[in-house]
């Protein structure tokens, strides 16, 4: 059934297939003739069934049969015998079609349709299924249909689970059987059905079972998928949790003007400058949630003068579900005194309403508080004389922290809200993962196995994550990075995936504690720049990143250097609401679509995307990962756009337009991209009126 090589057709086969095609054509034209004239006679149905027997893939023919059945049923409403015979005939047609091709979607669907009428006996169905599963135990159509029949017959999930055990015992390379097992077990565990509680005991047995498959034949993938599912069941917390926030709990936020920069007592990590008269407030969850609003999160502060706050999901696809939410505290209407501080207290989830996308409620009400200090703001500095920000190496000086800094970084480790697992369960999880790690180390000492290495890497990360509240140091990260580097060599077709995973681990390692993060923090020497709220720059440049991560620990960053990496996407960056200067030069960004997250960064002023691959690829593959530009729900003022763009054909620069039109950039570097010709640059100048510097050239003001 599987793994059989295709043979080249012999001449007689070709002749036979030509004859078959001829027969098919004639049946098809006869059938269409009947279909178009709505003829449902015995003869017409006969033609149709002969057609389906040869070609069960012909959807139109199945649809016709449905019409015919409806038609004939209305004519024989009263007589149960004839209803039965009509439906039985359908079941027979399906069976003979399935004999021809037991993977025909149309045929299986038709059978479901007939049975859903509730008139036919179901006894035969399980026997039929047994036959199909004997022919090919991995046939997922049959497994799908089995779930359908099992629910119609009210077969218990426990019995169905036993069936998957039997099938797995016969041949464990059966992805369908493992999959059905995971579906059934999920339900049984959720219901806490008898014998399926506590979850820990059941999962232990499942680990035991899947180990047999993994060790017997590590080359077979199906068991590994099941193992991945088990790992997820072990590690995941169902309920959403608040992971971090900006401003961080217990932090002192300093609102300032430029003149105060010299004050060395201030921590540059917490100083913040806003021209907009607002302070962003960011909450970061461990998974995407919906229902974040002024009733689920209450903010108490004198700064919150407008009463109701509007929370906005930071999601690049305009969904109302997001992992990160932002709102803005206003302060322009009250007179702020530099001698005072203003406490802000945020309570999350004290009323129900925050729900994860999988339907779990936020169940751990928590609060965080911070204080806002104000430094006078010198008005005359804003507005004119904007200096160009230079990313030159000699502009940066490694930051050395001052011991007296009270509250230096970070929302790094401030928000350790306990998750919903009890002590014993936590212990079980840690033990289970540790046990798995030991096992797969043993397996890898025997053989070289790609998926085994990947699993070990995932286990180590899971272990790390589990321990992270206690130890703010990563124990396994070097090993994991090595595993992924190894995998990139072993399995080059998937090297991009491994590279992404490696990037995430590297970022986790960098952000795992204060000391390690400080090694990447630099003071920007160009202190006169009015754009920078502070001069602290996080430089994650030249470390082979292909993906961004650990952003929940980097919400404070205002200046970020990601140049000389291998980024293809900047997914996640949208959460960095304070970001005003961003260097993405010398990466592998291949389209403007990949820059989508920037649209949500309202403070962004300085952007360097020079020396990427924008415009070099005729097909924008990133676009397949995003929703279509036409699906953007926001209103676009077309007439305005036309006046802006003038003679330039907007459709050529559609993505660029969508990215830049909402940004108030003052400085942009785009040189070194295929798209960046003179025509494009002049287009940019038009759609970004705030722009002062383009590719290092000061623009002449109109």
């Amino acid at each position: 059934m599987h793994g059989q090589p295709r043979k080249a057709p012999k001449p007689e086969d070709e002749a036979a297939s030509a004859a078959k095609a001829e027969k098919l054509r004639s049946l098809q034209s006869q059938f269409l003739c009947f279909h178009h004239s709505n003829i449902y006679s015995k003869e017409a149905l006969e033609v149709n069934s002969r057609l389906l027997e040869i070609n069960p893939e012909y959807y139109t023919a199945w649809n016709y049969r449905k019409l015919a059945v409806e038609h004939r049923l209305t004519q024989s409403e009263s007589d149960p015998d004839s209803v039965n015979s009509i439906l039985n005939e359908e079941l027979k047609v399906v069976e003979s079609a399935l004999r021809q091709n037991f993977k025909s979607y149309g045929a299986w669907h038709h059978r479901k349709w007939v049975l859903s009428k509730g008139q036919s006996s179901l006894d035969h169905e399980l026997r039929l299924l047994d036959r199909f599963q004997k022919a090919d135990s991995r046939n997922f159509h049959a497994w799908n249909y089995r779930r359908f029949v099992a629910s119609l017959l009210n077969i218990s999930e426990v019995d169905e689970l036993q069936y998957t055990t039997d099938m797995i015992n016969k041949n464990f390379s059966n992805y369908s059987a493992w999959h059905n097992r995971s579906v059934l077990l999920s339900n049984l565990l959720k219901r806490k059905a008898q014998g399926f509680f506590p979850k820990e005991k059941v999962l232990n047995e499942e680990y035991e079972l899947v180990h047999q498959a993994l060790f017997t034949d590590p080359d077979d993938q199906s068991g590994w998928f099941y193992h991945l599912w088990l790992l997820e069941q072990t590690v995941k917390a169902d309920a959403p949790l608040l992971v971090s926030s900006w401003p961080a709990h217990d932090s002192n936020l300093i609102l300032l003007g430029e003149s105060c920069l010299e004050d060395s007592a201030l921590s540059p990590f917490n100083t913040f400058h806003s021209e907009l008269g607002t302070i962003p407030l960011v909450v970061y969850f461990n998974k995407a949630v919906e229902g974040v609003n002024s009733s689920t999160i209450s903010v108490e502060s004198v700064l919150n003068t407008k009463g109701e706050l509007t929370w906005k999901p930071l999601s690049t696809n305009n969904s109302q579900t997001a992992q990160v939410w932002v709102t803005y505290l206003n302060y322009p209407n009250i007179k702020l005194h530099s001698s005072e501080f203003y406490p802000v207290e945020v309570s999350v989830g004290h009323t129900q309403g925050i729900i994860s996308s999988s339907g779990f409620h936020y169940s751990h009400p928590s609060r965080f508080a911070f204080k806002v200090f104000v430094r006078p703001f010198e008005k005359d500095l804003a507005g004119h004389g904007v200096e160009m920000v230079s990313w030159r190496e000699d502009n940066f000086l490694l930051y050395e922290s001052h011991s007296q800094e009270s509250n230096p970084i970070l929302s790094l480790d401030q928000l350790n809200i306990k998750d919903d697992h009890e002590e014993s369960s936590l212990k079980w999880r840690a033990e289970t993962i540790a046990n798995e790690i030991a096992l797969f180390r043993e397996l890898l000492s025997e053989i070289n196995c790609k998926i085994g290495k990947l699993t070990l890497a995932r286990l180590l990360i899971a272990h790390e994550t589990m321990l992270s509240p206690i130890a703010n140091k990563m124990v396994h990260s070097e090993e994991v990075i090595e595993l992924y580097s190894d995998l990139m060599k072993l399995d080059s077709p998937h090297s991009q995936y491994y590279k992404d995973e490696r990037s995430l681990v590297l970022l986790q390692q960098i952000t795992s504690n204060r000391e390690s993060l400080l090694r990447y923090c630099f003071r920007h020497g160009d202190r006169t720049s009015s754009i920078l709220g502070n001069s602290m720059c996080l430089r994650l440049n030249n470390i082979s990143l292909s993906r961004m991560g650990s952003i929940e620990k980097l919400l404070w960053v205002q200046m970020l250097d990601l140049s000389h990496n291998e980024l293809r996407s900047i997914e996640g960056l949208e959460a960095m609401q304070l970001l005003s200067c961003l260097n993405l030069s010398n990466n592998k960004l291949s389209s403007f679509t990949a820059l989508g997250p920037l649209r949500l960064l309202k403070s962004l002023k300085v952007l360097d995307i020079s020396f990427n691959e924008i415009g070099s690829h005729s097909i924008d593959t990133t676009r397949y990962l995003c929703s279509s530009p036409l699906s953007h729900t926001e209103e676009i003022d077309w007439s305005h756009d036309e006046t802006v763009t003038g003679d330039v054909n907007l459709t050529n620069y559609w993505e660029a337009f969508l990215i830049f039109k909402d940004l108030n950039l003052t400085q942009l570097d785009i040189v070194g991209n295929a798209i960046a010709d003179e025509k494009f640059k002049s287009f940019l100048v038009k759609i970004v009126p705030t722009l002062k510097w383009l590719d290092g050239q000061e623009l002449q003001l109109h």
Partner: protein
Amino acid sequence: MSEDASSYPPIEPTNFDLIVLGTGLPESVIAAAASANGKTVLHLDPNPFYGSNYTSLSLQDLSSFLISHSAPPPSPPSAPSDGHDFTPAALAARPLFSHVEISSFAPDVLGEEHSRKFNVDLCGPRVLFCADKSIDLILKSGANQYVEFKGVDASFVYNENGKLTSVPDSRAAIFKDKSLGLTEKNQLMRFFKLVQQHLDDKGGEDESGNSRISEQDLESPFVEFLNKMRLPPKIKSIILYAIAMADCDQDNVDVCEDVLKTKDGIDRLALYNSSVGRFPNALGAFMYPIYGHGELPQAFCRRAAVKGCIHVLRMPVIAVLMDKSTGHYKGVRLSSGQDLFSHQLILDPSFIVQLPLASSPPGLGSIKRKVARGICITKSSLRPETSNFLVIYPPRSLFPEQVTSIRALQIGSDLAVCPLGMFVIYFSTLCHDANQGENLLNAAMDSLLTVPESAHPESSTTVHSENSAEEKPTVLWKALYIQELTMGHFESISSTPIPDGNLNYNNILQATLKLFQKMYPLEEVFPETDSPENPEDDHEFSLES
């Protein structure tokens, strides 16, 4: 046995291409093959049943057959020379069995009535590998129409702690196995894969230039290769004795008489592997004929009869007729006194011609080894919920001096070999002398069964109730015998091979086919025919589920 012979009507015609004496499997295959090639064949047997040394009998008949074939035969009357152009050479019976010991511990249970319900194999324990050449031969000959098979449910290894563990002989079995550790599972499966890749490469004529297993390894002892693969002792033992079915202790070169070479070991693994799953209804590698192994020779005899072979049972032959001038074979003299003539004669190995020129009887002198066989009848299975299975006692598993592998086969009433609720357990091992063989088999029996001290059923029940914690089935009837091993040989009078110590018939049938080819160098064994009565499709093979 011969009292009726004289009352038989004379056999017509009196000239044949081939006369076959004995209806054992090799004789029956030759008779069927010769008949299929259009030869005129007369097939004789002094016994009242088919099968000779390959038969299955009731307990009583089995006992008397063993006893009568172990006693030194009465000296045959020297047949008078009666002035023809040939001299009769007396045909003597050769005792193939010795040290026959039969004990019945429960005469009430195994009364006359019950005894008839048994079909106990004389040459057990014996099974067929599903991918055996013998299966192909059965299919090709058309004998499959007359015999049905059933898959053997499982096979187990007896280990030092007296437990039976199932043989992880396939991917699914390794997966399910409870006795192997995870790493052991990995090692075993990897070894199977290596062998499979090696076999696949061989088929592809070494495209990569180097076979997976080097030529040097192939010629080295299999056990060394397993060591080289770093397989742990437990797995090594499973592969050597329970899958490759090695007879002798491969780890102990001093006592091992036939060290298995890697290439032979791999061939045996390949046979085993291709046996698993060949027939959808047989889950394991082995199958067993319903009604016992005696069915197999009968099936070939029926094939032969369809092609015109004449069968006469209860017909002893008293002498072989030799040409006076050339000394060549001419024909046979029946106990009825009738003389029959043929070009060739096949004798089953229990007969020897006492030639006047008195060359030593062929075959016997050269082979030192014997096979010890044992049969036990019980009323409960050795394993709950499984009735038909194989047990392997690897060398040294019973006691340190055990140098050969012992094999046991339990067959239940669902294979129609015994009354409902009873079980027949066969044992065999190779040995040098009767004493050694008996010791080995008794130890194997004692390890899993309760053998009553004496023939008193009462005492056995008390023993049985004392250690009910580890309840061993009690033996109701037991037979132990030592069988000679001879090879077939080809002369003008040819003799067929005796049942060997192996589980399957491959060596026997190979020797038989070789014999046939020597007799009829130009003939195919079973020529292909298009006749519908000769189905060759595997699916026609009748295997009870």
